[in-house]
């Protein structure tokens, strides 16, 4: 670079202004970054305990309802093997964290790990400084091996199903042969019955049945058929029934006469009772008369009983 031939006016002032401006920008930027990192904020400590610190880094946010309310200060390994995540929560934002708050650590396949706080009951007591809370982990990456195993099993099943000797493949082959038969002359009937011959037999049977039905119709309902004969028989039966009805009417009259005769016979039976009484009285009189004759008769038997 060539030295200037003309002196630069106010060169020292300009140089000092440039240096001062640059220094001011640097100091302002450093202060801005420190402020952005919460260096000048009053904070309280929250310790989250988990069993895996993957994805957690210093400076990441703890969010509540999508708003950052804390920042991870550092991550350390405890004596019991658990991970302790030390979080600085600004005092002005600590009101969103309560004793009943739940903390989650979510890892997605793409993007950052997220620390979230959920406070369902904001009326609960506020979270104390230095409180320790467990973290519920939701890791999409951890599901990948299970998903891969399931997918592998599914693919193996699919491979078995589509193998040359697989039942599904055979069934599809059978279905294909059935549908191929159904495309023939006799359609679905050939597909169901197995061949065109069988379908032809069924159709022939149907034809014969139709012919038989036509003949039966002629015999049943034609002129001089069974139906006509039946109608004549019914008419004849009707006349016969009329005659039977007349006969029954006459029988009814005879029965009425018989009833009258029976009543007369019942009166005659009462007279016979008196006659019987008289006859019995006459017989008893005749018996007493014979006894008296026998008593008086010399040939009467000695009926006296002699005691020894």
């Amino acid at each position, binding site marked *: *670079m*060539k*030295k*200037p031939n003309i*002196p*630069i006016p106010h*060169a*020292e002032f*300009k*140089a*000092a202004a*440039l*240096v001062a*401006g*640059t220094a001011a*920008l*640097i100091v302002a*930027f*450093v202060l*801005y*970054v420190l*402020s*952005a*990192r*919460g260096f000048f904020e009053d904070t309280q400590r929250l310790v989250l305990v988990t069993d895996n610190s993957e994805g957690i880094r*210093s*400076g*990441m*946010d703890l969010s509540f309802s999508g708003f*950052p309310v804390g*920042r991870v200060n550092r991550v350390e390994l405890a004596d019991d093997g658990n991970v302790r995540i030390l979080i600085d929560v600004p005092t002005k934002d600590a009101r969103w964290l309560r004793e009943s708050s739940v903390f989650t650590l979510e890892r997605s396949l*793409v*993007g950052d790990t997220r620390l979230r706080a959920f406070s369902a009951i904001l009326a609960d007591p506020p979270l104390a400084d230095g409180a320790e809370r467990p973290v519920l982990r939701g890791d999409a990456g951890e599901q990948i091996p299970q998903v891969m195993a399931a997918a592998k099993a599914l693919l193996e099943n699919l491979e078995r199903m589509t193998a040359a000797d697989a039942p599904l493949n055979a069934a599809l082959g059978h279905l294909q042969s059935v549908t191929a038969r159904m495309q023939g002359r006799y359609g679905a009937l050939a597909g169901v019955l197995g061949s065109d011959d069988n379908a032809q037999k069924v159709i022939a049977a149907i034809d014969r049945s139709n012919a038989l039905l036509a003949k039966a119709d002629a015999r049943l309902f034609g002129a001089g058929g069974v139906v006509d004969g039946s109608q004549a028989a019914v008419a004849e039966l009707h006349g016969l029934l009329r005659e039977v009805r007349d006969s029954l009417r006459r029988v009814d009259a005879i029965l009425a006469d018989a009833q009258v005769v029976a009543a007369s016979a019942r009166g005659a039976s009462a007279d016979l009772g008196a006659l019987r009484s008289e006859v019995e009285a006459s017989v008893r009189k005749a018996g007493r008369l014979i006894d008296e004759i026998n008593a008086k008769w010399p040939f009467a038997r000695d009926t006296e009983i002699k005691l020894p």
Partner: protein
Amino acid sequence: MNGNALPAPPRGPAGPTAGWWRMLHVAALLLAASLSPAAWTRATRRAVADQVCLTALRTLPWFTLLSGLLSLVLVHIVVVTAQSYGLTQFALGTVIRVLVVELLPLAAALFVALHGGLADAAPAADAEDETPAVTGAIPRALLAQVVARAVAVVALATLAGGIALLLAYLGVYGFTPWGIAAFTRTVGQVFDPIVLMSLGLKTALFAVAVATVPAACDPERAADARAGEAAAGATLHATVRLFAVLIAVETLSLVAEFF
């Protein structure tokens, strides 16, 4: 070769290692002289002020314009790409990391190195400037140029970083104040202590390298010229060394940030 430049150090065994060692030796001398309070006489301050005005203030408008355009294009590309992939939340952090932390300090160093002219690593001589700033050590003009280059690199990187932050905010949130809280949060997340220290150290090393390496190569160039070597080839030699140093510094900063 300028008559006011550093006296050529005694040439040791030839070879790339010896060359690098001589360069480091002279660069250390230049740095030590720059930081020496005894060197900062009124004449030296005047010379430094002139060189700062020549080197930094003249390059500032052009570099501000070019870095602003570069920032605008990169912010737009990153934001649009992030939106198309549904990753808008990462756009701002990516832009800040790429521009402010990585690209702009390197761009500032290269701009100062190239705009200053590596061939004129040492200023032209005159009777006044041949006076050593420190007796028996560094000429004043050379010292002024070293300081001016370092100041230029830091100033350009700082201003370009500030403009890039402003453009990134406008590119992501637009002309609204409601994104300041989220923007501040993202800046705080990007600039963790390691990144902040890495950025500061990297910019400082860039400034030192751009200021001292071309001047430190000058005695060698003089010796090479005396040996009949072409001056253009020696300038290319200094350029390669400066780029190698810049790449080494950038690599070290990346290692510090990501490993």
